[in-house]
């Protein structure tokens, strides 16, 4: 029983260990502030909402239905593949690819590009925060 408890608490620590570095946390705080300004009832970012943003299909920039998973696939610990060019995309999950979600400028660039590609518009602060909260836990 003790062992099980120990294993459980260890894995809880591992799960909690997935957090943003300082510059990324500062960016998350900015997004939270913006989300609160846009909607006073905003409380916190939510990984479940982020997952829906990431996996749901939308008519994208090319006029075709697609989702983030069209290229990144549903298993973020594995490589994806660019839908247009077949080019391999390194895993998006920070647990499989330590470089992910560490550089604010990179993150902002890809959120801008990929929201445009999949949603054919920019993402709101709430959407960006939610999707990053989902991704950091992968």
């Amino acid at each position: 029983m003790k062992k099980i408890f120990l294993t459980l608490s260890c894995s809880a620590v591992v799960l909690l260990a997935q957090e943003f570095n300082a510059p990324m946390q500062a960016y998350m705080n900015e997004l939270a502030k913006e989300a609160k300004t846009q909607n006073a009832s905003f409380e916190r970012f939510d990984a479940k909402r982020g997952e829906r943003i990431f996996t749901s299909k939308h008519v994208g920039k090319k006029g075709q239905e697609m989702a983030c998973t069209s290229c990144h696939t549903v298993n973020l610990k594995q490589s994806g593949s660019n839908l247009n060019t077949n080019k391999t995309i390194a895993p998006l999950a920070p647990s499989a690819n330590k470089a992910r979600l560490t550089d604010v400028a990179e993150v902002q660039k890809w959120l801008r590009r990929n929201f445009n590609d999949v949603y054919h518009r920019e993402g709101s602060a709430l959407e960006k925060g939610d999707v990053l909260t989902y991704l950091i836990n992968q």
Partner: protein
Amino acid sequence: MRRIILGCVILVSMTWAKSVPVANDALYQKECASCHFGYQPALLNASGWQKVMGNLQDHFGTDASLSQKEHDAILTYVTQNAGNSKLTQGNTTMRISQSPYFIKEHRRIPERLIDQPEVKSLSQCAACHTKAEQGDYSERNIVIPNYGRWE
């Protein structure tokens, strides 16, 4: 004089070997070749590159926008190394695959070999040109998926 001879030899051998200089700019590799094959700047003429770089928000249907600083650095790199040979002559578009020479060189390839999932389109140089990354487009290094060597 020696230099001139050496220059001529290199130029002639490059033309024969169907080679272009490697795309060795780190920023270009990071920003452009992370999504698609890193087309060597010499595959498109300067006016073509200006068209490409002038509309990265809608880059062949995809948002490939860059910060101003990165945009300017890459524009300088691609235009300074742009093509100026039979490869790019007469191409008034921003598509490498619209150059008259390119069209002529690919005219005999059956559609089914281009449309197949392993290739997708003539934009995927490296699908058949096994040494495309090194700028080598010579016929002896062509292997078409589900077909084989093209000689």
